[in-house]
């Protein structure tokens, strides 16, 4: 479903994982997200890894979103473990939530019900939380990527009052 509309859109990928930070795990889900993005013609301009935790996620998202127009996809930290605080960290920085995108991502498979991921906007960046498994992350992103260009364009074009 290569949609030519996605070309020209830029994206950043944030992997939230204690294991990847510690070097005990490879960042396979970050790579899975990059693969979905590049196969849709989206240009991946940055990738970062942070440890789990609300403050880590919030700080990373703030710096990734600063002066950036496009898509920021996170992977990891959306479950029920005590260190799973990606949605909480994301909410700290979100200006407006986009529950429709979060729900559409949850519907991709039965395990989606266990993802607490959120979606929304920070400045002119659209943030999506996806789960930590490579398959889950790729499926969730694929479920909404067709509407991403439209959303990003609206964030830039819509008249705003500063």
């Amino acid at each position, binding site marked *: 479903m290569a949609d030519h509309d996605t070309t020209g859109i830029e994206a950043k990928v944030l992997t939230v994982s204690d294991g990847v930070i510690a*070097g005990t795990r490879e960042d396979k889900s970050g790579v899975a997200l990059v693969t979905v993005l*590049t196969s849709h013609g989206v*240009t*991946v301009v940055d990738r*970062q*890894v942070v440890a789990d935790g609300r403050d880590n996620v919030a700080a990373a998202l703030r710096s990734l979103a600063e002066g950036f127009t496009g898509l920021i996809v996170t992977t990891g930290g959306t479950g029920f473990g005590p260190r799973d605080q990606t949605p909480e960290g994301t909410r700290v920085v979100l200006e407006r939530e986009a529950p429709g995108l979060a729900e559409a991502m949850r519907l991709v498979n039965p395990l989606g019900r266990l993802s607490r991921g959120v979606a929304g906007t920070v400045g002119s960046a659209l943030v999506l939380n996806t789960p930590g498994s490579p398959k889950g992350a790729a499926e969730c992103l694929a479920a909404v990527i067709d509407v991403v260009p439209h959303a990003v364009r609206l964030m830039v074009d819509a008249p705003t009052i500063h």
Partner: protein
Amino acid sequence: MSASGPGPEFDHSRDDRFMRLAVANASTVRLLAPPNPWVGAVVVTAQGDVFQGATSAPGGSHAEIGALRAAGELARGSTLYSTLEPCSHHGRTGPCAQAIVDAGVARVVVGLIDPDPQVAGRGIALLRSGGLEISVGVGAAAIAEQLRAYITHRTLGRPHVVLKLGASLDGRIAAPDGTSQWITGPEARADGHRLRAESDAVVVGAGTVRADNPSLTVSDFHAAGEVPDAGVDPLRVVLGRADAGARVQPARSCSGPLADVLAELAAAGVVQVLVEGGATVAGRFHAAGLVDEYVFYLAPVIFGGDDARAMFAGAGASTLAEVWRGGFHSVTRLGGDVRLVVRPHDAGSVRAC
């Protein structure tokens, strides 16, 4: 700076785009790659499929090999992007340049020539003798910035030295009674932990160990129940002697000229050291001209006198003509504080808050 002429279908924007992705891939392995360089790679197949690679932990595969493995048979006829020149020597792994030739890659785009004397252009030569088309220098400025510590280590034979100082607005790091925790806020301290995690060794003076008894671990990067094993916690180095019971233990005690200490650390695979203070150690590194990057965390706090502890101990410049002058590399707000990154002789631009 292109080593060979661009091919007929050479497309600058396409090369820039994929090299930028390779740089992004490299940034994910900044903490686990040292003492190897943190390199990113991308393989773009003839059909347009894109595969990723990044340096594994020491002993694992290099970035180019990771991307080639991901591409498998599709690597034949592909373009490979690598932020750093593929290696040409047998280290813990075989030479990447030969693997690239063997995989049937048609074109290789390299960001930087590897400054390591063991490579230094030999990888490019090997690729060229294999008949591959080569472009060098794409994204070179961003990659030189990303690999700055590695370049210092390989070209100067000493670790890249970062000096961190948390201080009041009037440049004081401790009150007259010795209290210093905390002048800066949690965001600045968390950023300090990031610096520690990026560093392979942390240097602190014996006086600071006695006064503050710091552990110098990377608490923000530690997960409950997860034991980091890829060097997230830096080697702790005390200039002088630390008590056996100090929280900094286990630590390496060093004495003698700083240049010798640094050479010893470089040989032990320390690519970047973070100098954490206190004022005596900061003064010694500064006076010796051994600081590659100064990171100041300044809080909107004023001691308001000259009896609080200054950032640097010892005699400083005695006349204006002798003051040290550097350049601001970046200025960033962190919570209620400001981070100033300053480099020697750097006309680099200031990024606004």
